[in-house]
């Protein structure tokens, strides 16, 4: 089936240019501030610091999970990468080529290499189109004939586990949430993308359906050599599906690294709090007190220095003076953390203690 799909694809653009060592996507200094409308007479313009200078790389064929509380900038990051929103600054390098830069990859070609699956499976399907029409729309726009596009849509439907005979002419409201999300996945695959952004793609599904969709995603990833950017607030799911994890707090990356290291040896107090909030399967092991108090600070006026310090039990004077840089965690390869306790030179009293862990 899958080889058939690849043969069908007249728009195949997925030649691996940079080789296996080249990260599929490098994001540098990505920033997006949203202006806040003040009163008519308000002089000073305010901004929500939605995404505030983040850097990360997505390795080929891997799944990078982005986790964090609501409003920490996860979805904005996804939309900035997909260029559904113009970033204020920042560069994207896709398989070694600058996106939209001179001599790099054109925006249109980049978009074809990248597709997105949204959280709201209903809002992401046009209620007036049958699911076959929805999936065939993209290929049709890229020059396939209607017959070819329909054929492709039916193959994709079959691949995501929806019998074309039975489902092709249905409308979105006649499908269950899980089926709709399968349609969204099929649509994303219509272009043979290399990078798929899954923005809370399974969050709205119940657990058993969620597992089915996750398994489908794993299969498709292997079949089509996909790379996933998996945005979620469900830490169990992230643990299951991701190779690397990036933890965001208030528009910034606080910790990043291989999934087992993050889950086993979290170095940032926020990550630890987040992980301790994960419900345990063992009732004797239930969380007795809230790991964190208070709400994230106002993103219009984020605190100076470390943004987490107001809720951090380890906060000291140095935390309000300087913002910690995202640096390699002691003794752990590929594990980056932005915390003064991790930096022996920072002057934080716990610094030496922490780095000894």
């Amino acid at each position, binding site marked *: 089936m899958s080889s058939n799909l690849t043969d069908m694809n007249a728009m195949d653009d997925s030649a691996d240019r940079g080789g296996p060592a080249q990260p599929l996507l490098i994001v540098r200094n990505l920033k997006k501030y949203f202006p806040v409308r003040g009163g008519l007479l308000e002089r000073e313009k305010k901004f929500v610091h939605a995404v505030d200078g983040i850097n990360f790389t997505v390795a080929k064929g891997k799944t990078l999970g982005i986790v964090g509380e609501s409003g920490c900038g996860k979805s904005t990051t996804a939309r900035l990468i997909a260029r559904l929103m113009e970033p204020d600054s920042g560069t994207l390098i896709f398989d070694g080529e600058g996106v939209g830069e001179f001599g790099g990859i054109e925006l249109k070609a980049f978009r074809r290499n990248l*597709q997105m699956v*949204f959280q*709201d499976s209903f809002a*992401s399907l046009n209620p*007036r189109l049958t699911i076959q029409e929805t999936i065939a*729309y*993209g290929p049709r726009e890229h020059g396939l004939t209607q017959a070819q596009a329909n054929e492709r849509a039916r193959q994709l439907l079959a691949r995501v586990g929806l019998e074309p005979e*039975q489902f092709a002419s249905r409308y979105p409201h006649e499908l269950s949430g899980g089926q709709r999300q399968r349609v969204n996945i099929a649509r994303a695959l*219509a272009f043979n993308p290399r990078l798929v952004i899954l923005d809370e793609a399974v969050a709205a599904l119940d657990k058993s359906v969620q597992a089915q969709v996750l398994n489908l995603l794993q299969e498709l990833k292997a079949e089509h050599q996909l790379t996933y950017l998996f945005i979620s607030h469900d830490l169990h799911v992230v643990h299951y599906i991701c190779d690397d994890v990036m933890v965001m707090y208030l528009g910034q990356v606080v910790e990043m690294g291989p999934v087992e290291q993050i889950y086993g040896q979290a170095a940032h107090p926020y990550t630890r709090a987040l992980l301790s909030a994960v419900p345990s399967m063992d009732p004797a092991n239930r969380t007795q007190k809230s790991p964190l108090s208070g709400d994230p600070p106002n993103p219009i006026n984020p605190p100076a220095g470390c943004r987490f310090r107001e809720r951090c039990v380890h906060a000291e004077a140095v935390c309000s003076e300087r913002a910690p840089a995202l640096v390699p965690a002691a003794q752990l390869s590929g594990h980056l953390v932005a915390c003064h306790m991790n930096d022996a030179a920072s002057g934080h009293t716990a610094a030496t203690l922490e780095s000894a862990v």
Partner: protein
Amino acid sequence: MKTTLTFDGTLKPAPSRSFWMVVLRQLRQDRVAMISLVVLAIIIGAAIFAPWIAPADPFKASMLNRLLPIGSPGHWLGTDELGRDMLTRLMYGGRLSLLMGVVPVLAAFVIGTSIGLLAGYVGGRTNMLTMRVLDVFYAFPSVLLAVAIAGALGPGMSNSLMALTLVFVPQMVRVAESVTTQVRRLDYIEAARMSGASAFSIIRVHVLGNVLGPVFVYATGLLSVSMILGSGLSFLGLGVKPPEPEWGLMLNTLRSAIFRNPWVAALPGAMIFITSIAFNLLADGVRSAMDVRR
């Protein structure tokens, strides 16, 4: 509808699933809407075929037969103040009155939807500027506005059609714009943008289909308003001129006979009333039939 939803164990494809077919099937089960449709069909049919089926000449006056009551032999609906056959004049009158109802709404539908769609899709300053300009029209009650424009253009059929169109355009734009603004933010538009489709294609396939429904329903609601306003203009002498038969105008000229023969005098009004009610009920039926998600 429900039967196609339930899974019956076989893999046969469902019956025709095109959106308008589904709507039609639902509409057919709506009793009130179907009755309204029949009533409208009779009225429209009578108007269209008036020259062939009308019992008399609409302009032939007879001083001897003035203001005959309803049920008079030879004149089933009586005669007007000049002795002309009422049934004939009501049938002919439907032609202009329905035209007054349909043409301005159709014109405003095309113009208003285009403007609203573009303003809503482009958004930002363009949108704000368009809407503020149109708000000026909103400052006037529509009757007053229609009278003012028709008065400025001068009396006559085409001028009153134009005046009515101008009255309805801002309302259409507003509806189209607000629906477009809602639709534009939905994820499926973003997904379409992700597929690299052009703005024109996105508007045509994804926006238009979802905007057209609500605007269409709103437009059907305006049909009756337009007919009443058109009749009102004729009543005031700004629309059709006598002796042309038109319901509003007939209502005006029969006004003087209201004490001598109130039933005949009320007939044109009753026609306006029945037609607009039928349009409204049908619009209501279409509105609920288009809500496929039930």
